[in-house]
Every structure is written in C-alpha cells, then in structure tokens.
C-alpha cells in the first residue's frame, strides 16, 4: 500500500534546482534508500516531504491525500516521523523528556493541555516504548546533551517513531557512527521497515545494499536510476556518476 507519494517534486533555490521533478512512492513494509553524492538534493527531498520546505512544483500525497500545502506539524500528526541529518533535539532535556514530548504531540489540543505531564499515562508509555525499541531505555534519565553521538542518533530515531507514524524519513541516521555502532542500527532499520514506509538517506553503500528493498539514486537533484539493490549495483550509469568517485 502506498503511504507517501511524491509526483514531479521540484525545488529551486534561486538559480539552483536542488530537487528536479523527483517522483517516488513509499509503501509500508518497504525500506526505500535514497543515495547520491554530496549536494545531490537528498536532504532537500526529505525536507520537502516532511513539509519543512515548500516545493516549487509537484505534489505530495500522504495516505492518498494531497498534503502539498500542509505545514510540517500537520503532516507529522497525519503520520510522518522524521530524523535530521544534523542531530536536532532538545539538548537541555533528558532523553526521556525528548521522547515524551515526541509522544505527547499526538492529539495535543486544548482539551488535553492541562493534564499533568508526570501522570499522562499515554505519553509516558509511548516514550518508554520508543526508547526501548532503539535500546535507549537504560539512558532515559540522561540529559540529551551528555549522550554520546551514537546515542543521540538513536534518540533521533526514537523520537521519529513516537505515535507509530506510517512514514519514517530518516536522513543519514548512521552518520558519524563507527562500524560497531552502525551494524545493530542497520538491523533496527530492517526491523522498522516491517511496519513502516521507511525512506533512508545513507552514504554507506554496504549498509544500503544490505538493508534496502529499493534504491533511488539522485545526482544533481534528478533521479538517475531507480530499482532493486542488485540492479543498482550493476548499473553502469550509477557506477560512473556516483560509485566511481564516491567510493
């Protein structure tokens, strides 16, 4: 089932076309990797899908509904969880409070505003669940600013998982992790793809070919190639444009 679809998505910054008529679909149960050299427009694509940026042209359908003009918070509520390439969370707060705030966002409206946060069972349980899922429950009370880089990346993923969004957009969740750290996270991503439509931006080819169901290769904002990992690995065009000078 298609959870998220982009149709002819384009974004220009002045004279630069960072994303150039990109179309793709994300389905629950599938891990869709987007690879491409630096500046290919991968993060811009994620920002367009999440609503951080408005497209210059094109449409975005979330669960069949046109959400192109929706603000980011509204899309998040309708079922998009995302992580950022550069760790982006509340550093002064505990890991638990970060996850709890992510969980609390569900149905956060005036009717629920005055509930005691320390006793709001729904958000407390959801925070514990997502921390557990990424293996951070033991570090729940640590102030986020004191977590290791790897732990911060996991916390970002945990926050994206809150309230079970249909779509997960993870922008280089493994960035800056060593091989020992990234291996279990690869397994986690595989596992997450079973019940999410997962878009993974990733530089490390080994990881991508190990976990992805489908791969989109972007170069200069355009989709160069699109297919299953074995086909991408075999593609001469991809090797020339990217794998050649990338690796």
């Amino acid at each position: 089932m298609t959870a998220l679809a982009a149709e002819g998505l384009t974004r220009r910054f002045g004279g630069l076309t960072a994303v150039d008529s990109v179309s793709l679909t994300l389905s629950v149960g599938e891990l869709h990797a987007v690879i491409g050299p630096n500046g290919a427009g991968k993060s811009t694509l994620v920002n367009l899908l999440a609503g951080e940026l408005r497209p210059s042209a094109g449409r975005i359908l979330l669960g069949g509904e046109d959400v192109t003009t929706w603000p980011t918070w509204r899309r998040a509520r309708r079922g998009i969880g995302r992580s950022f390439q550069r760790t982006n969370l509340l550093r002064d707060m505990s890991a638990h409070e970060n996850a709890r705030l992510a969980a609390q966002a569900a149905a956060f409206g005036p009717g629920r505003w005055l509930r005691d946060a320390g006793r709001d069972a729904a958000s407390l349980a959801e925070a514990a669940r997502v921390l557990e899922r990424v293996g951070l429950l033991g570090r729940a009370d640590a102030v986020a600013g004191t977590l290791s880089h790897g732990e911060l990346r996991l916390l970002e993923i945990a926050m994206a998982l809150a309230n079970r969004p249909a779509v997960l957009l993870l922008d280089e969740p493994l960035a800056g992790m060593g091989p020992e750290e990234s291996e279990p996270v690869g397994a986690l991503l595989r596992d997450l793809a079973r019940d999410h439509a997962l878009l993974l931006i990733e530089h490390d080819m080994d990881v991508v070919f190990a976990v992805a169901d489908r791969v989109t290769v972007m170069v200069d904002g355009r989709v160069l190639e699109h297919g299953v990992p074995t086909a991408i690995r075999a593609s001469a065009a991809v090797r020339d444009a990217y794998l050649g000078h990338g690796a």
Partner: protein
Amino acid sequence: MLVAGRRGSLLLALAALLVAALPLFASNYHLQLASTALVAAMFALSLQLVVGGAGMVSLGHAAFFGIGAYAIHLLPAGISIALTLPAAMALAAIAALAVGALSLRTRGFFFLMTTLAFGQMLFFVFHDTPLGGGKDGVFITRPALELFGLAWEIPRRQRAAAMLWINLGLLAAMYVGLALLMRTLFGRALLGIRGNEDRMRALGYDTRTVKLAAFVLAGALAGVAGHCQAMTEAFVTPEMLAWHHGAEALLMILLGGLGALHGPILGAFAYVGLGEASTLITERQRLVEGLVILAVVLALPRGLAGIGRGWRR
C-alpha cells in the same frame, strides 16, 4: 524553566508570610512600597511566561498592564472588584490576542520590534485621548471590595494594609497557578518550544497556537497586575502602557533569573528595594541602579534565583 523545589517553595511561603505580617510593624509608606513591589512582581511574572516560558522577548507587554489599569477608569466608578478584575483580564486578553495573532508571525528580533510597535500604538490610544482622559493620567475611584454581596469596608487608616494583602494574595495565586501550569502538557510543550521550536513543529506541534495561548494568558495576567496598581494608587496614567515600563519588567526578570519561575518575584523586590535604597544614598539614583544591576547580571548569569542550592528542581 525551573519551578522552585520543596525548600524553595518553603522559603517563598515564609517570605509571603513576612510580607503579610508587615502591617504589624511597618509604616504606611513601607506598606505602599511593598505593594509597589508586589504589583511589579505580578507584572514581571506574567512576562516570564512569555520570555522564560516560551523564549519570546516582547517589548509591548506594558500595554496589557495599562489596559488592565484603565479598565477601572472605563467602567462605572465604584463597582465591585468582582467585576473590575475579570474585566481587566478580559480586556487585556483581547488586546493580547490581537497583538499576538499578528506579531507571532515573526520570531526573534522581528517579534521584539513588532510587539514594540503594537505596544506604542496602544499607548497612543490612551495618551491624551478622550478615552484615556489626559496625558498626565487621571484619578480613579477604587473598586468596591465586594464579593457575593459581602462588602468589606476599609477604614482609611487600614487601606494600605488591605491593598497589600490583596496584592499579595493575587501574586501568590498567580505564582501557584503558573507553577502548576508548567507541569502540564501545555507547560512542557512551551518549554520544548523555547528549547527548539523547529523540532517541536517537526514533532507535530502547532507551535504558533501554543505560543499565542501563552501570550494571551500572559497578557491577561499583566492586566491583573495593572488593575492592582490602579487600585492601589487610585490613579492611572498612560505611562503604564509605555514600552520602557515593559523593559523594566524584562530587567527584573534578568535580575531575578531568566530560567526560574520565581526569578521575576525576586527580581521585582530587588529592583524596587534597590530603587528605594539608592534614593537614600544619592540623587543620581538611576546611575547607582544601573551599576548594581549590571554587576548582578554579570556576576550571576542565572540571576538571584541561581543563588543557593535550595532552588534546584
């Protein structure tokens, strides 16, 4: 934003008791001075919800204070406080809703300037206009202290004490209410917005609505403070709405501690006390005040609330 812990709350309660007992030994002059500090504390506390709570620095907050004060002037003279106080809150809240809805489209420096501009506009609504009744201010009749038909007649001699108790009661209620608010889902969301608004939006928070709600509540509470000042002094002046009055409240917050809910209360008392002390020493009052504030802010980055460990969460 920290809310005082058990020990801090105990100290605050003791301080409140001390203030409540002032009429037993202090002169009327000092009772009035204490009322001035209590009203300033209410005003700064209301602003803290916006500044320390949501991380928005507003320079137009005095407008809501002034509107709360002028509410008494605009209503029929001598009606019950049970009517004037809610009216002051409502008028200030409506003004804050209008100002907030427009200025919350901006952030940071632009928010500061927009609130300043709206504040100045509201200042000139009351400055030298038929509505405000003169640019030097007007004397007003104090609202009657009447609740559910029970009237409290105060002999002239005891008026300063009565005003002090009312101001103290309202400040205490405001503080406890805000302390409780900071523990709710709303309060936590506000702190999240202060920490990282963009992240909160990506998490699914309609941050502008949350900020607007805080802005309106802060405006309403500033209206309470303004109402109390007008009631205490039986006088209203357009200066109450002036932007530098709001800047003074910002200074109190800075002095007391930006990161603590009780910071503005400490700051207000320190500020009023400092003003009083420096007039005793010198004619160049502002100079001394400025130097002391500068020294405190530089020496205590967390303000007066940062002193001592009892104030930790």
